């Protein structure tokens, strides 16, 4: 007599039609008398069917611009050795430095300040004034975001110096992306003002800021093509032609 525990590990293979011979016959015989395992089979079939129709997920619009820009830069770069992860890194000269400063500054803040757990034995309540308290987290978050905002302002200044060089359609796409991102930033900040320890809001804010830097990097890389005097290259990047 086979118990449910004996049969259960075989049920996924059963619903996938991968059991044969005695094994399959054993499962079929058990299912005839066991309502619980029949229910489990029904659930596994439902899961399987639901997974099959999980479709594609549209990537954010700005990703193509970033890919096209990176490909253009990749083609221009001396072919020494391919970096493992060139995205958001293969930026030339001052631009790379500016972007790195932004990311490092914010990264250091996030890692060292926002995600530092309270020390062992620290049993102060979340509303006290000590490290890890609501007030302290809010203060540090505010400070970190201020740093990030300052860096973004600098990138924006660069990005806005000569935007007439950009293709109007590309400029419009960049603008739309920034509008959506800015809305996400504003919503997250509102949520954090109400609840500074709101983890989803904090993650959304971090993600939105990261996206904003990505879009600004793309904008500046297009500008950089123009500064290098490579109008044709800029046009190709701006037109999304790798």
């Amino acid at each position, binding site marked *: 007599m086979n118990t*449910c*525990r004996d049969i*259960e*590990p075989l*049920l*996924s*293979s059963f619903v996938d039609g*991968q059991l044969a011979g005695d094994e399959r016959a054993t499962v079929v015989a058990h299912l005839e008398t066991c*309502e*619980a*395992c*029949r*229910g*489990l089979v*029904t*659930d*596994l079939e*439902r*899961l*399987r*069917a*639901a*997974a*099959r*129709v*999980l*479709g*594609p*997920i*549209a*990537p*954010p619009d700005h*990703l*193509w611009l*970033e*890919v*096209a820009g*990176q*490909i253009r830069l*990749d083609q221009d770069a001396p072919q020494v050795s*391919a970096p493992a*992860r*060139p*995205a*958001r890194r293969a930026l030339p000269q001052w631009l790379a430095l500016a972007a790195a400063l932004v990311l490092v500054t914010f990264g250091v803040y996030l890692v060292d300040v926002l995600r530092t757990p309270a020390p062992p034995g620290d049993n102060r309540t979340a509303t006290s004034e000590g490290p890890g308290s609501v007030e302290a987290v809010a203060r540090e978050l505010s400070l970190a975001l201020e740093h990030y905002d300052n860096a973004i302002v600098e990138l924006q200044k660069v990005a806005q110096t000569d935007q007439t060089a950009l293709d109007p359609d590309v400029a419009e796409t960049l603008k739309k992306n920034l509008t959506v991102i800015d809305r996400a930033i504003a919503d997250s900040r509102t949520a954090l003002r109400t609840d500074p320890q709101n983890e989803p809001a904090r993650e959304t804010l971090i*993600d939105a800021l*990261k*996206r904003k830097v*990505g879009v600004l990097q793309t904008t500046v890389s297009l500008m950089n093509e123009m500064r290098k005097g490579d109008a044709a290259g800029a046009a*190709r990047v701006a*037109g*999304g*032609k*790798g």
Partner: protein
Amino acid sequence: MNEIVPALHRDLGLAERCRAGAPGAFEEVYRANAPRLFGLACRLVGRTDAEDLLQEIFLAAHRKLGLYKGESSLGTWLFRLATNLCLDHLRSRGVKFAQVTDALDDEREVAIAQRGGVLSAVERLDLERALATLPPGCRAVFVLHDVEGFEHKEIGALLGIADGTSKSQLHKARMRLRAALASPATRTLGQTS
């Protein structure tokens, strides 16, 4: 066969135009394939890393287009490339696919099973959310098998695990998803019995 060959010729032609730098050619490749590859990356590595990975995938594809010989469709070639990059990413994060995911508490599983079927319609968003909570090893097997339609043998080769391990991980992933997606009322019944 008569339909496949022209499609492969088309793909080879498109790859050739990309290599020659024809305007719009690589964007055509991106637009046709990015949503599927982004879905794969989101489910395997999570949304935030998926954005960086998608860029990496298409940069790698652009560099390697010369290796595409038309033995499969360009979409399949890209999908393999993307799968390998996603799995490399997980390995770089310390995921060991050969390490079998622990089963859920057996008693709870059986308790739920004793009530018969616990799932009604499985909503896409609920499934995506539940999927994100799985351990990376069994999640990868579930995504590759149930979402993307790979066979256990292919999954074994991709992950460097035995076919049997792939089957066992798939079952554990499904059981965990079932527990996560069970209606709250059913979960309560299962936990209190």
